[in-house]
């Protein structure tokens, strides 16, 4: 039985909810604001892998906006867009690759990293003195707390995904 679009949408909403709930469980709090959470990106990534990029981007963007409402770190008008709706929306790109798990997750996560990186460049560009290499600082700053989280999510999605497919099959079989 093919599930209708409303229930896919609601499922996305609950994935956003799980992601937010997981984002409160911080397993490592970096001294400068960033933190490694208990795989809070995993629900969004899995959802995109299963339902395609369009739905994934929608779920990612609403997760980003929710983060903005709940725990805002606002330092620049453009940074708000780049760090929240866009960065998390780009996670949805992982749905582009029709269940090629590794490629999908890597692209999604790189998308998020790129958005944060760009926002960092803008931040350092407008607050730091001229002559500083904004790109290098931004890459270092974002890499420091994002990388561990990225690797963790990459592995977790990989581990969970196949059980997920099996679950889907069982559910379709049941319904």
């Amino acid at each position, binding site marked *: 039985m093919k599930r209708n679009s409303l229930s896919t949408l609601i499922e996305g909403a609950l*994935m956003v909810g799980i992601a937010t709930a997981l984002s409160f469980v911080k397993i490592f709090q970096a001294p400068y604001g960033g933190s490694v959470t208990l795989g809070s990106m995993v629900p969004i990534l899995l959802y995109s892998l299963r339902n395609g990029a369009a739905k994934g981007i929608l779920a990612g963007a609403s997760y980003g906006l929710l983060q903005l409402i709940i725990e805002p770190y606002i330092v620049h008008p453009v940074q708000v867009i780049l760090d929240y709706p866009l960065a998390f929306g780009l996670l949805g790109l992982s749905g582009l690759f029709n269940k090629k798990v590794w490629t999908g997750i890597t692209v999604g996560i790189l998308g998020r990293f790129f958005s944060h990186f760009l926002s960092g460049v803008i931040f350092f560009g407008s607050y730091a003195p001229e002559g500083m290499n904004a790109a290098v600082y931004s890459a270092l700053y974002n890499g420091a707390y994002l990388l561990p989280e990225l690797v963790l999510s990459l592995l977790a999605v990989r581990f969970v995904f196949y059980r997920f497919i099996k679950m889907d099959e069982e559910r379709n079989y049941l319904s």
Partner: protein
Amino acid sequence: MREITIGQYIPGNSVIHRLDPRTKILITFAFMVLLFVIDDFAGYAFPLIFIAAASLLSGISIKYMLRGLRPLLIIILLTFVLNLFMIKGRVIYEVGPLSITYEGLYQGTFMVLRLVLLIVGTSLLTLTTSPISLTDGIESLLKPFSKVGVPAHELAMMMTIALRFIPTLMEETDKIMKAQMARGADFSSGNIVKRAQSLVPLLVPLFISAFRRADDLAMAMESRCYRGGENRTRMKTLKMTREDLFAFVATGIFAAGCLASRFLW
């Protein structure tokens, strides 16, 4: 059930609390952009007065507003130190190879002030507006863009449902974590591969129950004839009042002040 508060909202019934969320979002955005227009210390008088007035009207103490600075303290310090040491000019003090210049001190203080005003000013939005009404505001502001394909209603609907279920899902996460820990699961040690593996017994049950809930919820919504955003009415409609008009006028005066400080003086 234990009440879990999400977000930073402090309930109240002040003028600022009562303002339409759209008004507050738009004003906050204008405030952010205008801060970047100001280019000397005298200009900061305007945002200072603006924030002080808003804070007095909202009844939220400065202490709460300053609390938002704590997580960004390192960024603020970094900004100050970078400017302090890296700008060339008249030397005030030398420490080894580093020298503090007059210009660096000026620029550093200027940047830090901008950052602090920005953080404190924007925190007023989340302090005085509940997440749900912020979501309603976002939906209504994005509506014009739905013509070019932005799914404003779906976005807001997802956020609203997520907000409703976050406390439930947090409780569930907590329960599953404890249950698995009682069976010997370890979420906080080992290398990164181990940690990712340890997430599996947490995520799988969480997802399964979310799937069930999603199906039930979708069925419940459909049996109540939910058909998406078109022609949908609301229990609480957003309405602009005279207070909103006053807020926009005040922001207009503030904007004029900022622009004047940059281009006239």
